[in-house]
């Protein structure tokens, strides 16, 4: 006798039950999403480290971090052991401390974020720019990390 594994057939959504299927999709997405997605929606975690993007072209790595409302002297960018560290302190302006606060969603305080780099970089050529609240760090790759074209000899 063949024992077949019995699988529950997928129930087709009824026209009036659209709400339930989207709820199920939301829950699926919640479990599939990487932790950073959750961190962004959770107010507890989202404030302490800025969101970053890392791009790579043949000569450089480019790291972008969102840090609105800071002064460039309060941002600290350093390189150590193959990792780029972005840290600093977001300060609130004293003049508003006497006022009555209706909403306080902005994060203030110390933050730190370390980004691992997949290849060695030329430390002396690193440039950082802060514009419109976005910090852009350009890290030129070390010579040995750049892609090299190797000619194939045919004998």
């Amino acid at each position, binding site marked *: 006798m063949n024992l077949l594994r019995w699988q529950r057939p*997928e129930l*087709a*959504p009824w026209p009036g039950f659209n709400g339930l*299927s*989207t709820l199920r*999709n939301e829950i*699926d997405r919640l479990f599939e999403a990487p932790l*950073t997605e959750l961190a*962004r929606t959770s107010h507890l975690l989202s404030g302490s480290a800025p*969101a*970053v*993007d*890392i*791009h*790579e*072209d*043949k000569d*450089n*790595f*480019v790291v*972008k971090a*969102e*840090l*609105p*409302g*800071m002064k460039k002297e309060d941002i600290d960018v350093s390189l150590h052991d193959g990792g780029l560290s972005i840290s600093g302190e977001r300060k609130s302006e004293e003049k*508003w401390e*006497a*006022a*009555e*606060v*209706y*909403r*306080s*969603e*902005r*994060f203030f305080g110390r933050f730190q974020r370390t*980004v691992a780099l*997949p290849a060695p970089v030329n430390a002396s050529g690193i440039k950082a720019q*802060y*514009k*419109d*609240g*976005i910090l852009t760090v350009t890290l030129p790759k070390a010579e040995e990390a750049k892609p090299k074209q190797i000619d194939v000899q045919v004998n």
Partner: protein
Amino acid sequence: MQTTLEKQTTNNRPAREEYIAPNVNIFETQEGYVLQAEMPGVSKEGLEITLEGNEITITGRRNAETVAGETLFRERNTADYRRVFELDPAIDTSKVSAKIEQGVLTVSLPKSERVKPRKIPVD
């Protein structure tokens, strides 16, 4: 039926334009209200502030960014910002001003003169 279900679960590109709400701080002083909204990536050209009735809508469109090469890791949200607030009737809408600096929009909403507390001299 099966294809309808699949379409729902794999659709991660928004069909219509989606906005995210920027984080705000709102303060009130005797002079008026101050609204600070965090919109990194938005400069003066991308800002739109409209007052209608008793509502203020702030919309911030991000600067276009050229992506260098290949993306290794992406956490930043690329959506534009938008948020609507209801105004206190004490605000003098003709005196509302705004400025944006390093991605933080600061809107000043002063209260009308007659609402401010003042002393009445007694003859």
